[in-house]
């Protein structure tokens, strides 16, 4: 007897392409097409659909980054190119998500340095890049413009557009053919509204990745989990304003009480488990890019995703 795992749905998750190889006009070693799903996560019968991607988050000014990461990575965090390279060669990430935290200093104005950082990171790693630009409306326009221009042809994923703040980022994405992250605070309707706003100013569906905002495990994760399920569900029922792939990043995971106050000898592992449980559940709810900060979480997630794909088995011990 066959069982219909499509539950009668008609919608499809739209596709978004991240990164561009030399043949595609960029310089990345690989590019990814995400989306394309026609049912709930991990129920797909189509063997061509890929496992969720795992992005390692790094930054160009680690002052405000979690000390847990500095302890684990050492001086690497002071050298953003080496960090990006290690993400690829040692930590096994699929993507690098670079936060331009240097722009968050008071009265930041050295826009040229942004361009240099991006160039350096692009040459250090062959992975497609997610780029988190400014966090400050005053400099948004210049920063995003510079990001877009410097990485022209690379099909970046630019972050992060929000309801009150999306024009500069959309302009940079449109001008240089990048995609963008559209973030709304844990609410299906707000996610939909933002997508409509973006579409009205010309951003195409195939250039939007939804970030429904992920509260850390124990700190609002259940809301995020359900928001993701509902977005996926609406998309499958045919709502094209919600039918974009999703990204999940529980950035608060490293600052919550359980992690921060863990005994020093357990802290690393606590951080990893917290990111891991959040990431895998986020993927089960429909996210296709899972972002983490602790390097050890990367391969744990990738191994788990491998066992979730069609035709996989359980690893053997010997």
């Amino acid at each position, binding site marked *: 007897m066959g069982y219909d795992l499509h539950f009668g749905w008609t919608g499809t998750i739209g596709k978004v392409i991240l990164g561009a190889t030399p043949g595609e006009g960029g310089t990345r070693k690989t590019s990814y097409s995400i989306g394309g799903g026609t049912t709930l996560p*991990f129920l797909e019968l189509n063997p061509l659909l890929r496992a969720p991607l795992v992005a390692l988050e790094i930054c160009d000014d680690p002052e405000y980054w979690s000390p847990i990461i500095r302890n684990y990575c050492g001086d690497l965090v002071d050298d953003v190119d080496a960090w990006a390279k290690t993400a690829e060669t040692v930590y096994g990430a699929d993507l690098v998500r670079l936060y331009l935290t240097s722009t968050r200093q008071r009265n930041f104005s050295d826009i040229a340095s942004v361009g240099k950082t991006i160039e350096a990171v692009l040459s250090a790693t062959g992975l497609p890049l997610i780029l988190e630009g400014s966090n400050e409306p005053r400099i948004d326009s210049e920063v995003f413009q510079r990001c877009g221009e410097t990485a022209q042809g690379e099909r970046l994923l630019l972050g992060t557009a929000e309801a009150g703040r999306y024009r500069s980022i959309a302009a940079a994405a449109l001008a240089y053919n990048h995609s963008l992250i559209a973030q709304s605070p844990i609410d299906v309707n707000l996610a939909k509204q933002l997508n409509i706003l973006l579409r009205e100013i010309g951003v195409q569906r195939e250039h939007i990745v939804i970030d429904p905002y992920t509260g850390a495990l124990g700190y609002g994760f259940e809301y995020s989990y359900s928001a993701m399920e509902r977005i996926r569900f609406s998309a499958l029922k045919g709502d094209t304003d919600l039918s974009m792939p999703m990204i999940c990043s529980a950035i608060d995971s490293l600052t919550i009480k359980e992690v921060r106050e863990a005994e020093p000898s357990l802290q690393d592992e606590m951080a990893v488990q917290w990111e891991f449980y959040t990431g895998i559940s986020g993927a089960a709810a429909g996210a296709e890019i899972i972002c983490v900060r602790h390097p050890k979480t990367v391969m744990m997630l990738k191994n788990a995703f491998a066992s*979730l794909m069609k035709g996989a088995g359980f690893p053997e011990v010997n």
Partner: protein
Amino acid sequence: MALKALDIYKLLPKKNCKECGDPTCLTFAMKLAGGKADVDLCPYLDDQAKSVLGATTRPPIRLVKIGVGERSFATGEEFVLYRHDKTFYHPPGILFKISDLQTHEEITATTIRVRDETFTRIGSDLRFNGIAIENASGSPETFARAVATVEENADLPLVLMAKSTGALNAALVQVGSYQPLIHTATPENFREMCAVAKKHSCPMAIKAHGIDNLITLAKDCLAEGVKKLVMDLCPQSLGDYITTATAIRQLAITRAAPDLGYPVFMDATHPFLQDAAIALGIVKYASVIITPPLSPESSKAALTLRQNIYTDPQKPIQMNPGLYRVGTPGKDAPVLVTVNFSLTFFTLQGYLESSRVPCFMLIIDTEGLSVLTAVAAGKFNETLVRDSLKKFNVENEVAHKTLIIPGYSAPLSGRIEEATGWKVMVGPRDAAEIGEYLHEEWGKVPL
């Protein structure tokens, strides 16, 4: 298709004898109509009525209780595929697995750990649920001894995992009346297994690969008279687990395949993928999860995920608004305002307790929203603070008129001062800094 309460009532014996646990046949009928009771609870129903009612009224997934006493847990009786459709009701029991080849000391240590370890989050005690004992030795005596060791140390729900009924019988001599789950009946051995389960009226796990085989096996066991079943899907990968578990949940709740209406058993003891299996079991429909003893880090993450996924999405866990005391505050003790979201309350309370400054917490009714969320939604506002001060009579509890508000509500400070006539101090954003703040700042306040 669902029957109405009155249609059901017509088929009941109308004795109003209360033996079903309900005061009248009519209230029992109403429960049946809501899928909240099992027809078998009425001993006087004739077979014809039973067959009409059985399939349509019992909960789409049967309730199966494992263990007895305080730590026993219920599984099943779930109604939805997504938690946002309503809620998930019965969090999966997570049991630590041991083998009868382990030493007496090891078995004792794991048992005591499950018995005693508690992780308190937002006012609830989170715990693992029991012990699964595997008959790895193959010997009934060794198995019985291991089960006895567990039993000497704790009254925990058990899963008895053995291939032979001989081993099960040897263990059940000691624990047969405590409702352990016996694992596992297969298409090859189900008759003997059913005989064992029936003798002790324990719940039983059945194991087969693929939905059709599970249906056949469940029917066979039911025909043998065993109703308290859980299903081990013996998946070949995590993907296979999710696919099968989702299909089963869907087919069961829509009653398209009523023979699949039993809780799901998940063996998470896969090398390298234990945490992945546990997390997926929690979010995707497992009711009984067995795993080797977890590290402290995995333990907290797993128990927190389970708590999150099984909270009712319609109502965040809330506190009653009011004036709460930390220690025994006097007339000059500080008053701290916060919201009635439990997570916020317990986080702040924890830090206040460790600061050892006796104080009052004024909990205002933000309908369960956190500070930042409530401020963003306009639910944390000066009128609410003013009314709460009055309602909970704060003026008579303290001899000063100074309030400390959360750092995240700083933009409201002026308006709160105006509306209440109280002086407002803006506390830190992060509750972890509250102790230091109170020690430094409260002494300076002229009272």
